[in-house]
């Protein structure tokens, strides 16, 4: 159980009780000592007082002993007084049973009849005067007195405890306010949190929370914009599909129907490609993916082989220039999409009979992927804009989604690689992707 409140309360109250206990015990000890000394002193004072007031004559001593009437051996008084003559004869005792035995001069403690006694004995001429009281009696008196002392102390401790408990509660109240404010929030409410006069300790927490909310809000807005853009972009391809299907339904001429079916299939292909690209772009916006070692040479070969039907359909001359292997750290699926998008673009934009070349090079600092084509290229003024989502060089024509290059750039950024556009020696576009080492691992020639 990990609780600030509990921590504070337990330790503060423990400290309070401990201090209270220790100081009580010490005070008790000191007071008892003082009390005993004072009592001893009283014994002496009484003894001397008896001497000063004079004692009765010897002849009256025994009658004095006889006339003393005490029913309680412990006496109603606090002490017992006794008188002996020089011969050791008890002349007077305030107890019926004669009282404790005669001690030597001075203060003594002894056991008599199962009790502890304190006595003070004075020898004055022929007489020995002794004043004594029981330890138990002393204790009783002391306890009665001390109650008057420790009851107020206990009350004070109780009040202090209550005060501590209440103050801790008050001090921690802002945490509870914060908790309530947060738990009442709807999921969509990403506005900044505000507490009325927050304590200094909570300010950094609040600031950090609000910073987080701002980031989440920005991410959510970006996502909403993307969804809206995606839905918008999908309308035209879907319109084409709908119309193509409807006119197919209305057409009776089989030759024409055949052509319309082909049109419809192209329309479906375009819509599918757009959806694939949209999904990938959405994934890129979301979580980061784990990185492993990826051999770019193998990846390029795989992509080119996969796209070879398209390449052959356009009669392109193509090839891959690469070392035996070139490894970088990255997300395999993402890198595959990057290479695939670049090669796919090159194929689409290169006219029939043109050229397509993919190259991988390694030096001490970098791994570079280059895709060259002999198509129309991209004019320098447009080279900045082509990275934008949904930007198309020839809107309306072809099956492009406008997302290909923006996805390439996003994947490159995730891998800390740079992408650049240039004019290709083949006459068309050159796209170069540069991965810095130590992102690149092993290589071999």
């Amino acid at each position, binding site marked *: 159980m990990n609780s600030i409140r509990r921590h504070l309360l337990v330790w503060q109250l423990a400290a309070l009780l401990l201090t209270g206990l220790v100081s009580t015990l010490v005070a008790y000890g000191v007071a008892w000592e003082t009390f005993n000394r004072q009592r001893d002193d009283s014994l002496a004072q009484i003894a001397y007082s008896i001497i000063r007031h004079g004692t009765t004559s010897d002849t009256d001593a025994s009658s004095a002993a006889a006339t003393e009437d005490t029913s309680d051996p412990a006496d109603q008084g606090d002490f017992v007084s006794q008188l002996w003559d020089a011969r050791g004869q008890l002349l007077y005792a305030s107890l019926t049973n004669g009282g404790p035995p005669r001690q030597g001069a001075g203060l003594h403690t002894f056991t008599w009849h199962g009790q502890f006694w304190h006595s003070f004995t004075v020898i004055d001429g022929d007489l020995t005067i002794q004043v004594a009281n029981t330890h138990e009696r002393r204790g009783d008196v002391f306890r009665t007195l001390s109650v008057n002392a420790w009851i107020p102390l206990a009350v004070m401790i109780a009040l202090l405890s209550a005060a501590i408990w209440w103050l801790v509660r008050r001090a921690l109240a802002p945490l509870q306010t914060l908790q309530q404010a947060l738990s009442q929030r709807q999921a969509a409410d990403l506005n900044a949190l505000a507490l009325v006069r927050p304590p200094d300790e909570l300010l950094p927490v609040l600031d950090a929370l609000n910073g987080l909310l701002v980031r989440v809000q920005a991410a959510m807005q970006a996502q909403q914009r993307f969804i809206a853009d995606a839905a*918008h972009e999908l*309308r*035209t*391809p*879907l*319109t*084409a*599909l*709908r*119309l*193509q299907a*409807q*006119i197919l339904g*209305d*057409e009776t001429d089989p030759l024409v129907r055949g052509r*319309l079916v082909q*049109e419809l299939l*192209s*329309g479906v292909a*375009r819509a599918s490609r757009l959806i694939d690209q949209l999904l990938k772009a959405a994934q890129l916006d979301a979580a980061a993916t784990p990185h492993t070692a990826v051999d770019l040479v193998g990846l390029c070969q795989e992509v080119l082989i996969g796209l070879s039907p398209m390449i052959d359909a356009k009669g392109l001359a193509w090839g891959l220039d690469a070392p035996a292997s070139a490894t970088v750290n990255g997300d395999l699926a993402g890198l595959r999409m990057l290479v695939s998008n670049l090669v796919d673009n090159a194929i689409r934009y290169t006219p029939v009979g043109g050229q397509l070349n993919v190259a991988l090079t390694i030096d001490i600092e970098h791994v570079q992927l280059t895709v060259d084509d002999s198509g129309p290229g991209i004019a320098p003024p447009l080279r900045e804009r082509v990275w934008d989502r949904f930007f198309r060089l020839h*809107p*309306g*024509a*072809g099956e492009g989604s406008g997302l290909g290059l923006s996805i390439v750039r996003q994947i490159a950024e995730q891998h800390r690689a740079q992408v650049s556009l240039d004019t290709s020696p083949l006459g068309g576009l050159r796209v170069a992707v540069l991965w810095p080492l130590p992102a690149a691992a092993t290589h071999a020639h």
Partner: protein
Amino acid sequence: MKLLLIEDDDMVGRATRHGLLHAHYAVDWVRNLRLASQACTQQRYDAMVLDLGLPDGDGLAWLRQQRQTGNAAPTIVVTARDAIPDRVNGLNSGADDYLPKPFDMAELVARISAIMRRHHGQASTHMAIGDLQLDLSARSVRVAGQEVTLSAREFALLECLASKPGAVWSKAKLESSLYGWGQEIASNALEVHIHHLRKKLGAPRIVNIRGVGFQLKTLP
């Protein structure tokens, strides 16, 4: 009836043109506003279908400009932007109707027909010229109560002649109303259609004004 289709997407344009031809309209298809302006200076269209996502400018601004320079052709605006402000903006810019994407071919055709009707001040889909009754949606005609079967071209020709009662149409005007770009017209195709129409409708309804053109006469 000749339409101008202004649409930049290849597939949507091809499919729309096909569907409109199938609905017996003649269609000229342009892919951007520059070509659209050119086409509008070369001839008057009976209606326009304007897609707003064009690469070379804002379709609504172009439409407003066209309205100012006297192009009153009834226009349907077609677009992926479907919010209320977009619709209001479209209609306020001079559009006669607004159709969001994706749309049905049948709905497009029906709405084009509706805006053209309205443009000609006709409340219903029926047109009566004397004892001729044209059903524009069924594309059929009754002569003095008797149903007469016409081919698509013949009906289109009749519809043209009947659209402005008493008006005289030159051969060139009739041809441009019946045929779009990319459709081959034999040099005497129009005369052949006129001939067939005269035969089917009986009586000297279609008059050839020498040197000027053709006129549909209203017979009681």
